[in-house]
C-alpha cells in the first residue's frame, strides 16, 4: 500500500526544485550584495545606472544665458537675481528644439506664492514686498505693471 503522505510531498519537493531552477534564469546576474552589507546593499547593481540616466528636466541658468544673455544679465542685476529662470518659464528640457514646449507662467498665483501678505513672524515673508490679494489690482496680471526680470525698474 502506498503511503498517502508521500505523493503531496513529492509535489512539494518538485515545486521547490522548479522554483530553484527558475530562480537561476529569472534573477539577473548582477543581483547581489553591492553596498556595505546584506541588510542595506542587496540589490540589482545596474539599477544605480538606470537612476543616473533618468532625464534631467531643470537645466539651470547656464543653459539660458547662451541665447538670452540680455534677460539673464537684467535678472542677475535685479532683486530677483536668485529666482531661477525655470521657476516661471518652466523646465528647460526640450528647449530650444521645441520652442513651444516652455510653459511660461505669468499668472498672479505664481507671484503670490512669495508676495501674498502672510503674518508669520518667524519667516522672512514679511520682508518681501507683499500685497493683500483682494486689495491690490484684483485679478490683473502682475506683469502688466511689474517687470519680473527687474521688479525695481519703473512701472510699465
Amino acid at each position, binding site marked *: 500500500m502506498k503511503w498517502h503522505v508521500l505523493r503531496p510531498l513529492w509535489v512539494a519537493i518538485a515545486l521547490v526544485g522548479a522554483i530553484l531552477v527558475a530562480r537561476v534564469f529569472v534573477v539577473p546576474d548582477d*543581483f547581489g550584495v*553591492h*553596498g*556595505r552589507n546584506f*541588510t*542595506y*546593499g*542587496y*540589490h*540589482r547593481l545596474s*539599477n*544605480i545606472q*538606470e*537612476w*543616473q*540616466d*533618468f*532625464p*534631467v*528636466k*531643470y537645466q*539651470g541658468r547656464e543653459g539660458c544665458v547662451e541665447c538670452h544673455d540680455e534677460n539673464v544679465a537684467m535678472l542677475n542685476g535685479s532683486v530677483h537675481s*536668485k*529666482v*531661477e529662470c*525655470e*521657476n516661471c518659464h*518652466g*523646465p528647460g528640457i526640450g528647449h530650444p528644439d521645441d520652442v513651444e514646449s516652455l510653459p511660461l507662467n505669468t499668472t498672479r*498665483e505664481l507671484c*503670490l*506664492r*512669495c508676495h*501674498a501678505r*502672510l*503674518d*508669520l*513672524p*518667524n*519667516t*522672512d*515673508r514679511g520682508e*518681501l514686498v507683499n500685497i493683500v*490679494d483682494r486689495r491690490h489690482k484684483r485679478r490683473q496680471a502682475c506683469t502688466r505693471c511689474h517687470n519680473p526680470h527687474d521688479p525695481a525698474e519703473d512701472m510699465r
Partner: protein
Amino acid sequence: MSCTRRAFLKDAVGGTLASALPLGAFTLLSQDEAKAAIAESTVRWAFLVDTTKCVGCGLCVKACKNENEIPYDAPVMRTWVERYVITNDGQAHIDSPMGGRDGYTSMPLREDGEEIDPDDVSKAFFVPKLCNQCDNPACVQVCPVGATYQTNDGVVLVDRDWCIGCGYCIMACPYGVRFFHPEHKVADKCNFCYHRISKGMPPACVECCSFGARRIANLKDPDDPVTKIITTERVAVLKDEYGTKPHVFYLGLDANVR
C-alpha cells in the same frame, strides 16, 4: 607510552595542514577589491534645510514633481513643505495642502473653519521635508525582495523593475516620505535627484529655492561649505530617537516639529 621524533613531526605537520584546511574558504582580495567590498566612497550625500529662510513659496515642491515625473495633481510628493502656526494658547496648527505645491497665500484655518487672527500667532514658520537618506534606513531593512537599497554614497534608491508594491517600506519609514507611485505601481521616494547630483548638478528643489533654505552637501568633503555648516553649527535631525541616523539636517528646528 613512547613517541618517536618522526611520528611527532608527522602528526604535527598533518594536524597543522588539517586545521588550516578551512582557510581555503576565504578569498584573498587585492587592495582595490577590498576597498570596493567595504563600500569605500569619497561621497556621502547629506542635506541642509534652513527653516529660518523658508518663506513657503512651494516652488521646490513644484520643481520636484516636474523633475521626477510625479503626477502633478496626485496627492503624493517626494518633498513637501509644512506650515506650523503656534497660537498664543500654545496650540500648534499644522497644515500642508497638496504638500505646499501651490505655495501658502492665506492664513491657516482653525478647526472651526475660522482664519487664525495674526494677533493670536505667537510663532509661525515653514518646515520643508524630504527623504532623510538614513544611515540605518528602516525602509530598506523591511524590503522582502531587495528592491530598495542604499548606494555607497548614502542615497536610498528604489528599483522600479524589482519592486512588487507590497508597501512594507511605506509603513516602515518613520518620516512618511515613501508613497505608492500611482503610475508605476511601485514604492517611490525622494532620492536627492540622484540623476542630477551624480552629474554634479544640485537637486531640483535646491536649484529652484530662491532663498537658500535647501542645500546639498557631501559629508566626506571637508571643504564643502555646507558640510562645514553641518559639522560646525548647531543642527538638528528629525526623530533622532528612532536610531535611523537621518542625513537631512535642520537649522532652526522647533520643538513643535514632528
